[in-house]
């Protein structure tokens, strides 16, 4: 039994390119990766939003209403439902004057338990050290 840990780092705002959304959909795909692996092997994904990437986390995104497109917000909630670790850099939120009130924090209304972790950048550095591979978006 082995585990390969992947760290997804989202450093840009959403909607300009698909990448922030694809970061989340790919991370969520870790839920079904076992079809390609031996029994008990697994791939886990942690996701961190840093820099302008934290703008992806602002809540109440009306992307379906305006562009008939699932919002990045909904993908973050889906990732929480799948029990993925979602980190948001505290220094970057501070830089923008954003608080936990302004961002997606949980998927409670969908029955999720896990919450977004607002952490100092140092913790995200630590996460990056622990991962086997890094994927920057």
């Amino acid at each position, binding site marked *: 039994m*082995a585990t*390969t840990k*992947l760290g997804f780092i989202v450093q*840009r705002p959403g909607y*300009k*390119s*698909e*990448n922030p959304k*694809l*970061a989340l*959909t*790919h991370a*969520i*795909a*870790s*839920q*079904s*990766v076992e*079809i*390609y*692996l031996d029994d008990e*092997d697994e*791939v886990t*994904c942690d996701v961190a939003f840093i820099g302008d990437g934290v703008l992806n986390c602002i809540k109440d995104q009306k992307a379906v209403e305006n562009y008939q497109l699932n919002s990045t917000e909904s993908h973050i909630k889906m990732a929480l439902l799948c029990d993925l670790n979602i980190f948001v850099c505290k220094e970057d939120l501070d830089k923008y004057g954003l608080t936990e009130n302004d961002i997606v924090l949980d998927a409670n209304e969908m029955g999720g338990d896990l919450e977004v972790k607002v952490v100092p950048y140092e913790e995200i550095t630590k996460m990056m050290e622990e991962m*086997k*591979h*890094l*994927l*920057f*978006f």
Partner: protein
Amino acid sequence: MGKLTIGCFASLVGSTNLDFAVKLAGAALDKGHKVDLWVSGNGTMLSLQDQRAFKDYSYLEKPVKELMEKGLNVTACEACAEARGYHDSNTLEGVKRFSMDWYLGSTFDADRVLHIGGE
């Protein structure tokens, strides 16, 4: 010899992102490494068959075919492809189509992963 998994997401024909991924894959194969190439997002345009060769546009169908003969494993994100109108019926021969979990599966035993995201 190791295994390199390359993921290419941003892809502008005429930019050199996909070109870069294909050339790096070729260089790694030449050195005896195993290479998986995952194309997602607009990168899936690599998977559409019957692209016409013009000197003004990147033309990767030929080099990709040659590298697949040397063992390059190319898989396109199925949903990203379908959303663009690229279906099984018009996919370049030899290119596989799977869900996103394939990419993660490929990283499992990869020695190195190069994820080309960007914009």
